[in-house]
């Protein structure tokens, strides 16, 4: 169980900036009332954030990535069960990988 000073400092540096990211965005907007456009943007942010995360990740997988994503969305919409949707996606990517 070693804890080296250089490793500790690197961890503390990472932890500090990560907390600043988590709390800083909120603190900034509480201090300065955002303009209406920015407020509307924040309400629109959830969809585009996850789309922009998912699109390049799916493109890396090729066509089977997009097919598996369709399976996830269909199962989630039909069952409203997140575990089932995730399992369907993993099963689809596994099955499509076997075909290819």
């Amino acid at each position: 169980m070693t804890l080296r000073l250089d490793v500790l400092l690197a961890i503390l540096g990472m932890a500090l900036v990560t907390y600043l990211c988590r709390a800083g965005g909120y603190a900034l907007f509480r201090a300065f009332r955002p303009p209406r456009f920015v407020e509307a943007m924040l309400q629109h942010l959830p969809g585009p954030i996850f789309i922009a995360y998912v699109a390049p990740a799916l493109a890396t997988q090729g066509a089977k990535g997009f097919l598996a994503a369709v399976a996830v969305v269909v199962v989630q919409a039909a069952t409203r069960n997140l575990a089932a949707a995730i399992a369907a996606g993993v099963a689809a990517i596994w099955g499509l990988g076997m075909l290819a």
Partner: protein
Amino acid sequence: MSGGAVAFTRRGVLRGARDAVPLVIGTFPFGLVVGVISDAKGLSLLETLLMSALVFAGSSQLLALELWTDPAPIVAATIAALVVNMRLAPMGAALAPWLDRLRGLRLWGTLATLVDHSYALSAAETRRGGRDAGYLLGVGLALWCFWMLAVAIGHVAGAVVRLPPGHPLYFAAIATFCAILVPVWQGVRRDLAPWLLAAAVSLAAWWAGLAAPWPLLAGALTGAALGAWLETRRR
């Protein structure tokens, strides 16, 4: 978002923790990978757990570990964490309707647990009219506990649990975000154009060779800006 009083109750925390459990299918393999790589890079179990407990953001940990050296790259690891985790800043701001009602440790402590998944579930919860901010903390705490467990198992098991690159289980992380998009969708008129733009911009940035957080940030911000522009123009 909904009006009315925002609460912070134990029931809300527990409900958030329960809703977080299915997400563990996606985060657990990720935690195993972080544990295995920490071990491979020469970090002790204590150092690995300390990093996972305090940083608690898998993609930034993974990126920092990729460029790990001995002695530890203090500046490079800090910058890597800053760039990858910048995406979290607008999430806290977007949850202001809940967070504005909290004070002290409840506010700043809850923010310490903020991750993509807890934000996504909480955003969906506010859409449904949820007014218990404890929900956000509950999701974050449950994911933190499973995260520590997965990283510890990964570190201890070392090479034994190493999944080959491209193993289907890695897709669980992406699938989680695809599924989360379903309850976020509010109809063609509001969401179709912004979501398509977000996809197009993120793909263009990715094809242009931009590294980790930039395709995400560019796509998210342009998509949200289009959504806001369309909405303010309609009024």
